[in-house]
């Protein structure tokens, strides 16, 4: 028993170390000007990275806000589209249900490059290429499968019975959805929402292609630095990226928690 315990603890600390160490190095790198090879510690420190980000002339902060706004909008749209689809897949019985469940995952099975090329041509025709709206639309492609998948499982657990009960008690379909279905699926919405937000926030290729260089998001600022080997700048942007994602997740959790009370009521 005791031996097992040691093994467990060692494995746990090792895992934590493995997960944390890249982050620590990232933080160090963002303050480092020169860190030549044999040296154990960096030789010179500086604040160039953060200065660059905060400097209005670089427009980094504007890009950051645009990215967050874009991903929030994508998250909202994804959830709006996914809820009805997930309900159909999770609750109703119809022919070809298994096929549709598979089909919904297609965008993440097929490489996005292949799909995006086709979409790009269509978007040029529709006048959506190089626009904010176009980028929002194309972000839905990799996001919807995740959201539908998670929410389908949520609906499978909730089922239809609570809604039936609410209807019988005199609630209209809309009231039932707002008062019963949404609160019941709140935890699922939270996990689907946060996953989708991250997926959208880290899109590089799709934004690059459809945005045509006019819609600049955080990953697009970051990539050139990574490519050119400017580790300081790349690390700084990475940290900002991580912090942004974490803050957004916390905000989302707060909203859901506050809206649907703090009780842990999911006893099903």
């Amino acid at each position, binding site marked *: 028993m005791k031996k097992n315990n040691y093994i467990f603890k060692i494995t746990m600390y090792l895992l934590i170390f493995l997960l944390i160490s890249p982050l620590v190095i990232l933080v160090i790198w963002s303050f480092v000007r020169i860190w030549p090879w044999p040296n154990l510690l960096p030789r010179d420190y500086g604040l160039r990275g953060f200065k660059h980000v905060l400097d209005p002339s670089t427009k980094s902060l504007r890009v950051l806000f645009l990215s967050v706004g874009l991903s929030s909008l994508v998250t909202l749209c994804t959830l709006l589209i996914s809820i009805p689809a997930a309900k159909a897949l999770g609750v109703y019985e119809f022919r070809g249900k298994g096929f549709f469940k598979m089909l919904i995952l297609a965008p993440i099975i097929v490489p996005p490059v292949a799909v995006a090329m086709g979409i790009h041509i269509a978007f040029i025709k529709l006048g959506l290429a190089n626009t904010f709206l176009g980028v929002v639309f194309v972000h839905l492609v990799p996001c919807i499968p995740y959201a539908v998948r998670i929410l389908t499982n949520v609906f499978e657990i909730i089922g239809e019975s609570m809604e*039936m009960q609410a*209807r*019988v*008690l*005199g*609630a209209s379909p809309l009231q039932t959805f707002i008062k019963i279905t949404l609160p*019941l699926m709140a935890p699922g919405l939270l996990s689907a929402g946060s996953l989708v937000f991250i997926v959208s926030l880290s899109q590089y290729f799709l934004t690059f292609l459809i945005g045509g260089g006019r819609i600049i998001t955080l990953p697009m600022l970051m990539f050139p630095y990574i490519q050119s080997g400017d580790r300081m700048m790349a690390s700084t942007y990475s940290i900002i990226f991580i912090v942004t994602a974490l803050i957004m997740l916390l905000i989302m959790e707060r909203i859901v928690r506050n809206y649907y009370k703090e*009780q842990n009521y999911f006893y099903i």
Partner: protein
Amino acid sequence: MYKIELKNISKVFENKRVLKGINLIVNEGEMLSLLGPSGCGKTTTLKIIAGLFSPDCGDILFNGKSIVNIPVEKRGAVIVFQDYLLFPHMTVEENIAFGLKMAKIKKPKRRVKVREMIDLVKLDGCEKKYPSELSGGQKQRVAIARALAIEPKVLLLDEPFSNLDTRLRESMRIFVCDIQKKLGITTILVTHDKEEALLTSHRVAVILDGEIKQIGTPAEVYEKPSSPLVADFFGEKNYLEGEIIKGFFVCKMGKFKTGFDKYPRVMAMIRPEEIELTDSEEGSGFWGRILSKQYAGDKIYYKLSANDIQLKCMANSKNMFEANQRVWLKIDFEKTIFFKAEKS
């Protein structure tokens, strides 16, 4: 007070005819049980009355007015489901007030009604609790209070006691019957438990295979079943094939006096508890042999054989008989129920 009428209700699910023309009248303030095995269409009937499913054909009348086209939320028929389905994100109070809120009843009035319901179902002190903090019986009470709060036209109970343990079930049964009597609300209870149906309701409708086979008072359906199917549902029976000749039932075992002469070829239904076992010849009956014995405390189940026919008997444990013992089966054929023999 509402009178409910179902006229020729049918429903098909995925090529299976679940309901085959249900005709049913529930009188004002009556408590009626729909009794049947699982999968016979009882719950479907309830859902059709509530409006959760629409019937393929037929009509539903509340006090003579068709309500088939009225949507669920305006119908005023509330189902209390088997698993209570309390809204987990609402307190007891909020659960009970849910229907009132949906009906847009003002807060002060709502509060009074909720208070009244909590008193009715005796749940003082639980107002602020969440469903996850309640026991099974309490959840059941909340579910009933929530249904009654909106003063429904008809209360539909879907196996309301089957998730409770035996002792709690008994007290909840009495409790629900009392409330039903007090409020005089027209109630339909769906159950597969024959004892529950017989104990609680004014009338019992036996549904088998999507059809109502018999409706009557508990005593009527139990004592005078309309067919062997209904009789078997109330417990295992013995059947003796034979003929009626001049007021006598003639079968393999002999000739017995009976007052029955409706059909010439008949099946006599003998309940296991109607067979009395004795050591010596006594009254009408015949000799048999005990094949096996199962002891169940207050009663004993015997399997008997007489003239190569197997019979079941349930006796009290006053006189014990052993396997292979020869016994006299005393049966009063004048009280026996005869069915028309099926063509075999």
